[in-house]
């Protein structure tokens, strides 16, 4: 796979952007790939919906925006409604079953997982929800090796939270294990 285009969407507090950065950083720093990560900025850091575009490639990446993602993650109903149509035919659309009710027909593989629920059930800390999503995504798509993502998590997260995040990532991996690209 020479080039993967991903779009992560959700709401301000869900850590969508952090997840995007970790994924792209894993590709660059720990796998020697090229990657770009960009995001839409609202009027500062206040709530509202968020989108982050990631491109991972072994070649140079010029235009950094994603028009048709191979992989689309929607973590709110609003973002699902706005973005589900942009998915590339045959791509993967990952949603969380607590936040998103799948309504549309899209020419893609729609995967709904109860990630939030599981995080709350098993870990009990909503802050690591985004890492769980990332875990699920990696286990479904393997765009980057799990080891690389874990390394990126370790380098990004304060020491005291590494354990928690690792746990969330592995939980996500498990949840996604039944699906594959």
């Amino acid at each position, binding site marked *: 796979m020479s080039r993967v285009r991903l779009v992560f969407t959700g709401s301000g507090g869900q850590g969508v952007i952090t997840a995007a950065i970790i994924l792209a950083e894993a590709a660059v720093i720990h796998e020697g790939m090229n990657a770009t990560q960009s995001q839409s900025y609202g*009027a*500062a850091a*206040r*709530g*509202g919906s968020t989108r982050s575009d990631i491109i991972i490639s072994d070649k140079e990446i010029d235009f950094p925006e994603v028009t048709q993602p191979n992989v689309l993650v929607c973590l709110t109903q609003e973002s699902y409604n706005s973005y589900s149509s942009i998915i590339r035919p045959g791509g993967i659309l990952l949603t969380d079953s607590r936040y998103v009710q799948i309504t549309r027909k899209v020419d893609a593989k729609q995967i709904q997982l109860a990630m939030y629920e599981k995080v709350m059930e098993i870990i009990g800390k909503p802050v690591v929800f985004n890492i769980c999503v990332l875990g699920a995504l990696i286990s479904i798509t393997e765009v980057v090796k799990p080891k690389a993502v874990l390394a990126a998590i370790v380098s990004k997260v304060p020491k005291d939270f590494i354990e928690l995040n690792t746990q969330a990532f592995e939980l996500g991996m498990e949840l996604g294990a039944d699906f594959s690209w």
Partner: protein
Amino acid sequence: MAVKDYLRERFFPHMWCPGCGHGTILNSLIRAVEELDLNKNEIVMTSGIGCSARISGYVDFHSLHTLHGRALTFATGVKLSRPHLKVLVPMGDGDALAIGGNHFIHAARRNIDITAIVMNNRIYGMTGGQFSPLSGPGVKATTAPFLTIDSSFDVVELAKAAGATFVARSTAYHAKEATGYLKKAIMHKGFSVVEILSQCPTHYGRKNKEGDAVSMLELHKTNTAPLGSKALKENPSLTPRGIFVDVERPEYCSEYDKIIDYAMKEAR
């Protein structure tokens, strides 16, 4: 009129974060205007740039959202050319006292009949959490990873020294008190300043381990005390609340009217 009649409801819910003190200040302000039963057509609100400055979009007055730090200068133009208008100028702490500090002291010096409201959250909210001249030392901010070393202004002292003729301070926690001060300030003839301590849970609270909006409001309660109170005497490190200045001095627009009278007579 009902309180909500002073709002532009179509823009609600507003853009401020959950628990942002600026919302409470908006709340106090429209209540003050409502209780004074002012005519909406005779109110101009001028604001600068910042989270705080967005307040002007939510009120159903004549509203002028201007440049960072310059709200009082636009307001001066409005007021001097139409002295019968009530001019309200809410400002962020950076807006009012970093880039806007000079206009603040000069408006006070002129004693022009404008009401300045400093929505002091001790941080640059809009740009994501840099320290402000009201942060004070020892504060964590995105531009102070090793904690601030800058002292802060005392808004009350500065306004007083510059010549403001009404100066008061309250907090978002003391919403009722704040409303009362705002009413007095608006009715005061001359330059009035009301500093209202606000909270930015998103940037200040998070970085400085002050927790969420609720616990930040607790701090407004515990770290302040009314002027002349026993608490304040016993603990001078508390921030005093109250009305610090309320005096009369010739107001700029009225004085200018006299100039016009004189000049027009002379010229004839």
